[in-house]
């Protein structure tokens, strides 16, 4: 009896807690609709979701890394470098062969493989090299962007027009009224949720973040799992990039700037603790959407000085976090 009540109280508490970002998002949506009726249009919703897709997909991968007790500051640079390399590869291949579709397909595969490889390198430096993830990825943050700048001479690397025509539907087409990036985002999020909550790997990730020592004693291959989380994040960055390239068909040293902060913020706003141990993919998705809705609303209205946009974002983030603060 008593316990039943307790359980209910507790699960209500944790429900409220989990539901914090959702409440925040709902309030924002109401505010958005009041400020500009176009906010609630389907087109706008699709725009917002589509542009959330990149950060959202990266945030899903980041969620694993953060739950396992790690961090990755390099994702923005990594995305930019992958985009640049993929474009260079596709442009080169287009000179050799005459099947743009094949070229694009190879480019897309390359994007994911490259991302996973970069993630793997991070993982190995962190586990074998025994270096703090913060340092490793701060280092590669600089390295990736520097190489992109080097390859592009500081300018933009641009996809050939012929390829661009073949590739751009990947970003601009809709299936059943929903743009492809949103579908991919959805699939990645579902896959992430399933992996985190329904596989041994996901359980191990949580166990490592909660207490690495205990996990090691419990026969968890801590190093392997950590390497895998970084590789998984890398693959997510690769997927985000393969959706990003057809959008503007170019990569430049400004591509992906501060994505790391956005992705980490999405995860944390979504209710995952920075120290790891536990977290939720659903929360992360909501967090990512919430962040892009804020700037969408700011773009749709002009009630506040443009100078203060960042301030509004700051206030909203803090407020949402306050709504879901832990007891």
């Amino acid at each position, binding site marked *: 009896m008593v316990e039943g009540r307790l359980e209910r109280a507790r699960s209500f508490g944790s429900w409220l807690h989990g539901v914090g970002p959702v409440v925040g998002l709902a309030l924002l949506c109401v505010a958005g609709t009041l400020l*500009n009726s*176009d906010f609630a*249009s389907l*087109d*706008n919703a699709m*725009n917002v979701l589509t*542009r959330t897709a990149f950060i959202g997909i990266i945030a899903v991968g980041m969620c694993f890394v953060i739950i396992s007790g790690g961090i990755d500051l390099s994702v923005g640079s990594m995305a930019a470098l992958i985009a640049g390399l993929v474009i260079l590869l596709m442009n080169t291949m287009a000179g050799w062969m005459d099947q743009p579709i094949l070229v694009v397909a190879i480019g897309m595969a390359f994007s994911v493989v490259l991302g996973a490889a970069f993630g793997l390198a991070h993982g190995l430096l962190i586990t074998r090299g025994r270096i703090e993830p913060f340092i490793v990825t701060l280092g590669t943050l600089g390295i990736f962007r520097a190489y992109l*700048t080097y390859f*592009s*001479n*500081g*300018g*933009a690397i*641009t996809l050939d027009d012929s390829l661009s025509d073949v590739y751009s539907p990947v970003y*601009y087409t809709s299936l059943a009224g929903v743009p492809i990036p949103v579908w991919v985002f959805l699939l990645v999020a579902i896959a992430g949720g399933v992996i985190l909550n329904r596989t041994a790997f996901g359980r191990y990730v949580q166990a490592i973040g909660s207490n690495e020592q205990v996990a090691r004693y419990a026969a968890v291959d801590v190093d392997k799992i950590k390497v895998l989380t970084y590789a998984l994040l890398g693959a997510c960055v690769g997927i985000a990039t393969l959706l990003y390239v057809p*959008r*503007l068909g*170019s990569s*430049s*040293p*400004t*591509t992906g*700037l501060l994505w790391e902060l956005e992705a980490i913020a999405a995860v944390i706003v979504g209710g995952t603790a920075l120290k790891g141990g536990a977290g939720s993919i659903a929360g992360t998705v909501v967090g990512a959407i919430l962040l892009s809705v804020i*700037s*969408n609303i700011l*773009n*749709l209205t*002009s009630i506040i000085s*443009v*100078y203060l*946009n960042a301030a509004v974002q700051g206030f909203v983030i803090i407020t949402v976090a306050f709504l879901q603060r832990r007891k």
Partner: protein
Amino acid sequence: QNKVNLGVAIPAATHSFTAGIVWWANAAKAELEKEHKDLKVTIKTAANAGEQANQLQDLVTANKINSLVIFPFESAALTKPVAQVKNKGVYVTVVDRGLTDPSAQDAYISGDNTAFGKVPAEYIAKALNGKGNIVAMRGIATTLDNERMDAFNSVMKDYPDIKLLDAKYANWNRDDAFKVMQDYLTRFKQIDAVWAADDDMAVGVLKAIEQAKRDDIKIVFGGAGSKGMIKTLIDGKDSRIQANVSYSPKFIYEAIKLTAEARLKGEALPATTIVPSVLITKDNAKDFYFPDSPF
């Protein structure tokens, strides 16, 4: 002939325009050092004002320069550090962003930020016959961006029937411009022209318009004359790209060349040289097309 040890301090290649600056500076170095045995050029790129101030110190202390060409990251912040360099007897040429205290420089070679805002305003106003809705993009909050915006607004004051619907920051960044434009398109059902204020941002703007399949926008006016946009203009590939305004990073090349050659001869430069920003249209576009530059 004098020996000239010339330091060049410029912003790092963080977006296309500054990439052009870096490229042209390197081109000048390669060309001039080959031509003049007595000339040594050292190029430093900085990611922020503080770093640039550090580099000035290092150029003087360690590289022992006797001439400096600087594209200040920021006018006000670099005034004092540049003055310090000049006090050590270094000949200083300032490019583009003028210092707040002109006595800190020997020569000033500048692009024309006023024209950068004025030219598009005039072009758009005329093309719309003084009537219509426009939206604008702004770069990163800086003095330079303010100058351009103010110049644009001052022209538009004379056209009461042209409505500037909104001007939001898109950070001279393609992706941000794409997002801002998407939201403009959601918000405003009738837009006649877009002042994208930079060719990078224009790229994002065009993609957003394409995606929304909107045909009310007749003009997208970028700025600075990147090779991609100039090419589009020459080829007439996009009816919305009708004109551009020159603000070529090539002026760093001119500045280095003029300074180096004058110093080699022991001469001084005129106190101020303005490289005019002019309207680029299909007719004169070829003169502004540099396919090898990254910009």
